[in-house]
Structures are given as structure tokens and as C-alpha cells.
């Protein structure tokens, strides 16, 4: 739509929507991951499970997008738009998401690991 009209109204509207949208998104993805994947083992539970999925799905989407951009950026017309600089930025964001995901995943792992330790008493 914006490509056709170049109306900045859309940019503003999207920003207004994105705030509440992000909150809704985290909630829905958390519950979806609990329903669809955590419930596979009904005896097991993890409170950070939803966040792992929020991070992991964003991460896979970004990785996929970067791969698509890398393929498109070699040809017209994208090679006029995409610069080395953008890939540097995307790479940094990818690293940030990887670290976020590993932080969540390790948090879960650490608690399970410590819970499995033999008791000293």
C-alpha cells in the first residue's frame, strides 16, 4: 500500500499498532508454545518456555530473511538498495537474537541441571 501512495500515515499507524501488537504477540506465542509443544510431555513444565519460542521464532525469521536478502541483493533492483552496511546491521541483530535465545535456553537448562543434581544430605 505504502509503495503506491508513499503516504507517511501508514508508517505512523504501524507504530501505533506495533506497541500493543508486541504485547499480544508475546502472550499468544507463549500460550501457543505451551499448548502445542510443552504439552507433549504433560508432566514437565518450564516457565521460560514461551520466551524461548518468542526468541527462537524471531531468530529463525531473521535468519531466513537475511538469506533471502543475500540472494536478492546480488541483482537488480535490490543491489541498488542493499549495502554492505545493512548486512552488518542485520548481522548484529542476528547475534543479539542468538544471544537472547541462548540466554533463555540456558536459563531453562541450568534449572533442570541443578534440579537433577544428587542431593548432598
Amino acid at each position, binding site marked *: 500500500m505504502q509503495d503506491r501512495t508513499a503516504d507517511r*500515515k501508514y508508517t505512523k499507524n504501524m507504530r501505533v499498532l506495533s506497541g500493543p*501488537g508486541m504485547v499480544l*504477540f508475546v502472550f499468544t*506465542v507463549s500460550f501457543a508454545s505451551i499448548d502445542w509443544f510443552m504439552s507433549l510431555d504433560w508432566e514437565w513444565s518450564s516457565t521460560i518456555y514461551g520466551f524461548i519460542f518468542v526468541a527462537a521464532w524471531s531468530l529463525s525469521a531473521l535468519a531466513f530473511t537475511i538469506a533471502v536478502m543475500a540472494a*536478492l541483493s546480488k541483482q537488480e533492483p535490490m543491489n541498488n538498495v542493499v549495502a554492505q*552496511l545493512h548486512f552488518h546491521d*542485520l548481522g548484529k541483530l542476528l547475534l543479539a537474537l542468538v544471544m537472547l535465545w541462548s540466554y533463555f535456553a540456558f536459563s531453562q537448562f541450568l534449572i533442570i541441571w541443578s534440579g537433577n543434581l544428587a542431593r548432598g544430605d
Partner: protein
Amino acid sequence: MPSRHAGSAEDEALSLINFFRDGLSTRQPIEGTVARGFLKEDTEFFTGKKAGKVSANPPAVPSQAPAGPQPSGATAAPALQGPAAYPDDVEVFPIAVTKEVVTRGKERYEIFCSACHGLTGNGDGMIVRRGFRRAASFNDDRLRQAPVGHFFDAITNGWGSMPSYAAQIPTEDRWAITAYIRALQLSQQTEQKRSGAGTSGRCAGDKRRASVTRGPYNAPPNVNRVQQRALIVGAVFTVIFVVGFFLNRDQFFYSYLFAFSFWAGISIGALALLMLQHLTGGGWGLVIRRVLEAATRTLPLVLILFVPIVLGAHRIYKWTDAHTVAEHPVLTEKSKYLNLPFFTARAAIYFAIWLALALFPEPLVALAGPHC
């Protein structure tokens, strides 16, 4: 003798003295000489006026009185446009306009001019936004057609409520700023032509956007080739998929769920990145935004792909089995939440929210109420 501060040494230089015959304490330059740095031979360079239109030395009296009315008002020669409105001003740069000059001009412009004229030259600088009188916009027709000498003259001698900047900005830099103003006008002109009147000036500073040529995006030809290959790979795996369905149905649905989480993650995650980009802005997202938007457009497909999970739920999830639920008290309690109808209803809500965010953002914004 004029009144003077008692014992003030500074006044001595200007005081009456009887040593010289003319009574001046400082000497005048010898007739026919020019002090170093004050030779302003190149009239066009130093005044922005056509040679012959001004007396060379001393500098010209400004043709427009600095304290005069705001030129954008209707009083200032409304009928005349372009060079005709400023017949005395030079129309070509008296310096070579190189990239270095424009870069220098940009730097100086942002230091001295942007506070009032704004970073894009729309006359909406920070001071104007805080209530100061609106500065002239370089992007209206009057200034777009004005000769370069006019800008130089305005910087040198002031214009309307704008003071003279001759003392702060050296001559060379005044021309550099003029060159940058021309660049700004070019960049904003394309923007206005495309978006129509009235929408400019909201988003200052993003000049790069204006220079990107637009047009219907045609995918490069090898995308078709990729598509064909993907179709072949897809067909092959569909065959394996169907074989798996008949060989080991439990494992089939379990694996299906795993694959679903991978592919659904890409389009659902794209939605998150898209919203993140809208919230934070930044060049990185501008480049990948259309790809992300395309990815979120596959969400209806993800919804369809979810149907087999509901159909095969009794093979994937142990909590769907009434027998197992009855055996375990914990699971009996959990069945208030973990039961197939509620599971399906919840999934429907998730998809409704995702699809609404991805496909119908405009009505959602309208629902949120008036703003802007």
C-alpha cells in the same frame, strides 16, 4: 570631548588627539591601498550580485532591508518568479561545486541553518517548532526558482527576521551552504512530486528515502528457477510424506509437528520483527521490511498447515487419551485446560490475533481510536 569612563584605556584609540592635524588618533589607510584580506575584487563571489550591479568597494548596501517584512508574505513582489524576482543576483555559482563543497555545505548548514530552516529545509527547524517565527522553506516555488545569489545574499545580509551571518560564516562557506540548499531542494522536490502536497516535512532528515527509485518490483528471472526447483523438492518430499503417513502414523504426526514449528516460526517470527522494526525504526528494517511483510502473508497457509495437528492430536498428545487422563490425578486436574475443544479454540484465537495483526493492520488502528 565625549563622555568617557574615567581612566579607561580602551577609549584612547578613538579619542580626540591633537598630535595629528585631522585630530584622529588612528590613521586612515593610504589612498589607493587595500588592507590585507579586504580586497574583494570578485564581486560575484563576495556579494552574490552580478558585476556592475553593485559598487565594488565598500560592499553593497543590501537591496532588501534586513528589517523588512517577511519575504514569504504577499508584500514581496508576488507576481515575479524565478530570476526575474531577483534581477541583481547571480544565477550561476562563482565557485566550482564539487562533492567536497556540498559536504562542507551540509555540515555548515546543519550547524548554522537547520535550527530554523530544518534539516530538510522546510522551514520547520527546532526553534520554529518551539514557537519562533516560521523560517522560509527552500521547497516552495519562490525559493526553488530563486537564483543562487539570492541565498548567498540572504546569508550575507540577512532577510526578514533572519540576521546577517557574514560574521560567523566565511564567504567560501556561504557558497557551500548555498550549494547544499540546492541539493536539498532537489531531494525534496522528488519527494513532493510523488506524495502530493501537504505530506512533506513530517519526517525530517531521511533524505536517502527520496533518492530510491520506485516502481513495480519485478522479481529477477532466476526467482522463477528457484520456484521451480522448490516445487520439485516439495513434490519429492510430499511423496515421502505420504509414504510416512502409511508406514508409521504416530511418528508421522510427531514429525509433522516438529516441521510445523520450524516453518510456522518463520512467518510468525517475521511478524514480531516487523513490529519491532516499526517500533524502533532504523535502516536495517527498511531494507528487509518488504521481505518480512511477504513472510507474514504466508500466515493463512500456516493456519491451513495447522489443521493436521488438530486432526492428529490424539496421536501426538497423550492428554487427549481419556484413559491416560483418568489414570493420573494430575492430568485429570490439567484436563480443564488441556482438552481438545479448548485446545482448538485457543489455537483459533492465536491465529485470529496473528492474522489480524499481519493482514488487517488498518482496521485495527481505526479500532484503537483517533490519533495522529
